[in-house]
């Protein structure tokens, strides 16, 4: 059978960003994790709405201060991540490193506050379903923040080594995508865990 050139791709970019399959892949990963988040929120709401008392008798709803501070830190870190991306697009390697480290520091601060807050809980995970949910969901998000930190640290190391250029920055783009998910995932948890019992 005769073959002829239908289309020539030699001129197409090998450094795609938003069109790169990896970008779509990370969105897929986020879709999966968002479903997990939704399932946890649904489980929480289900038990909250069917319980006669929520939180169980004798407990006040968990304090709002630290979770709210964390919410602010997480949302701020999305801005610093974006700034880091903009810096490398402008060819500013130092700016990229700075932005990445700033974001990592913000998340690290979140971990510290979460750890202090969880240590101060006056209930354990095996006391009642409320405690189980608080610990599990907090732990779930804690682990994700930790993963985002170590992942971004690797990106920062690569940045120090000069891997990223204005053209070759897919790694930064997809890391930012996941970072934004981890940071924003706190919003539904924050609303369900801390405002749910107050509004119900």
């Amino acid at each position, binding site marked *: 059978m005769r073959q002829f050139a239908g289309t020539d*791709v030699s001129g197409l970019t090998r450094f795609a960003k938003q069109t790169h399959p990896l970008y779509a892949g990370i969105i897929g990963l986020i879709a999966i994790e968002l*479903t997990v988040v939704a399932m946890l929120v649904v*489980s929480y709401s289900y*038990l909250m709405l069917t319980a006669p008392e929520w939180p169980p008798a004798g407990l006040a709803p968990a304090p709002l201060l630290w979770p709210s501070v964390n919410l602010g830190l997480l949302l701020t870190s999305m801005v610093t991540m974006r700034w880091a991306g903009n810096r490398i697009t402008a060819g500013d390697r130092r700016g990229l490193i700075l932005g990445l480290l700033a974001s990592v520091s913000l998340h690290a601060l979140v971990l510290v506050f979460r750890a202090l807050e969880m240590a101060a809980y006056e209930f354990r995970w095996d006391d009642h379903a409320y405690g189980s949910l608080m610990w599990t969901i907090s732990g779930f998000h804690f682990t994700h923040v930790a993963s985002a930190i170590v992942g971004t640290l690797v990106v920062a190391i690569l940045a120090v080594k000069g891997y990223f250029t204005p053209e070759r920055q897919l790694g930064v783009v997809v890391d930012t995508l996941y970072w934004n998910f981890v940071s924003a995932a706190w919003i539904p948890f924050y609303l369900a865990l801390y405002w749910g019992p107050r509004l119900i």
Partner: protein
Amino acid sequence: MEERREAPTRERRSEEHQEPLHPAIEDDAEETRRLTETWAAPTGFVGWFMPVNQRIIGRRFIVTAFVYFVLAGLLGIAMRLQLAAPENDLLAPEIYNQFFTVHGTAMMFLFAIPVLEGFALFVVPMMIGTRDMAFPRLNAFGYYVYLIGSGVFFLMLLVGMAPKAGWFNYVPLSGKLYEPGLGVDIWTTMITFIEVSALTAAVELIVTILKLRAPGMTLNRMPVFVWASLVMAFMIVFAMPAIIVASSLLILDRLVGTGFFVPEMGGDPLLWQHLFWFFGHPEVYIILVPALGMVSTIITTFCQRALFGYTAIVMSIVATGFVSFGLWVHHMFATGLPHLGMSFFMAASALIAIPNGIQVFCWIATMWGSRMRLATPMLYVLGFFWVFVMGGLTGVMVASIPFDLQVHDTYFLVAHFHYVLIGGSVMPVIGALYYWYPQMTGRMMSETAGKISFGLVFVGFNVTFFPMHQLGLEGMPRRVYTYLEETGWGELNLVATIGSVVLAAGFATTMVNALASLRWGETARRNPWGAETLEWATESPPPPYNQRHIPVVKSREPVWDWREEDERPVVVGLRSDRREVVVTSMLDAEPQAVQVLPGPTIWPFLSALAATVGFIGILFHPVFFVVSFFLAFFSFVGWFWPRRPWQED
């Protein structure tokens, strides 16, 4: 009139895009050799843990899944033998309960999902004309995770520690109090493994299908099997997290004493059922939908006609996918939920008849008055019509709340879902095995053995499962290891057992056929069935890079186009010294970029091991959670570390 395009007789299209005689491309032998080298998979023992090529991984999925099909089938036979006579004592209740738990779990998680994923991984990239999946290493990771998870799970049976709370693991029966051993722990962790494997395959399929289609393969030119795989993948993405959450909560309840499902602690056993069935019902359609895609493929090829009502069939598949998420409560009609609320799910369950009806009648319209080639794949599809329609009809019946309350958890249900799952899924899968075997091995399977196998399967299946409808109506509950003689269920059970032996003989014939044909099968010609899709536009078996040139597509049946036109447009400009594929746009498959795929590596295997250490370890000590977190982290760094030298890009 536009509809003529879908007329069953295929007309030659007037192609205004047909360029006036481009210069022909001659393949340079040196270039072909380099391409082979670039895409070759490593060999040797260590090499076995390294390949990332989609066809190798797909084939491994299929082979492994069929091993579990045989093993779980043997458990089924053992259960049938136990039930052949009343008050039989062939299997003690403890053993029987392990057998049906493992039978159900293995057939659903270890066979059905992986085998359909395997076919999708094997066929879809070729069907859309590309050279590999979008994330080849993730693909390999998915396989190792599946292999380890399924292996550990099945080993539990050999040491007599398998779970015995059913594949649905209802709490509190699956709680530590009533199921103290390691069985359920292993079940939850290994199921999570297999889910992770399914999820990686799903994300890959979605991205591969949406981003790596051959130029010109717009969404409305995608083969129906690709559509079905896409819908399956999306369903996996949104269904599986529910069971991952559910089994994580269960393992926490079991290991550290949380109270998600414990009523005394403010939990609720029904939460488990909601989460489980929110996954469990789509799961059934995850298994069904790609098999329906196989049916469309086989009918098109063996009737040598374009599918009648392509748009309607795609719409039906997509609608089935959506509706399947709105049916889960129909598994819970007896749990004492508000009656009005349940009636919504009765309505939704009944409505599933419409998209499936559309598909069945589109197939009939396609087959109508054709000179059908009655080879084994087509025979299995004809058998599918008989079995699946009956399963569908009983399925609509059990949507009715008052009727379901009588037959729920009886042998009527056992009959129903075996009709749907074996008829709707396994029979098309066996047909697809015969159909795609030449692309997997370069040989044909024996037609004679295939026809014998079909005869045995068809007769054996109906003899086994048809009487179960009556048994259910006579009051025989599911999951009983025996029954009293006075119940009068003995005769029909004996008939079913005899049928199951015939059914097993039928499947065994196919398995032996597949093994024997590896060696003695007739060598396959190019495109032996005269199919229309791109996986046949290359040799059998295809070279490591699948196609010498990625083709450019102008219709739904490109291979038939080329057969008529005797020429074909292809993509040029991909390098042969590294793994390059074309990235195209989602809707219109217009070339956007070139993706450079990574080569073989052992890191995915090491990542799978790291995950195993964690998941098995936490059953014994929580510190393994942290250990595994860092092990997995290091393996991921090794996995994703950029190729050197960077300047090469």
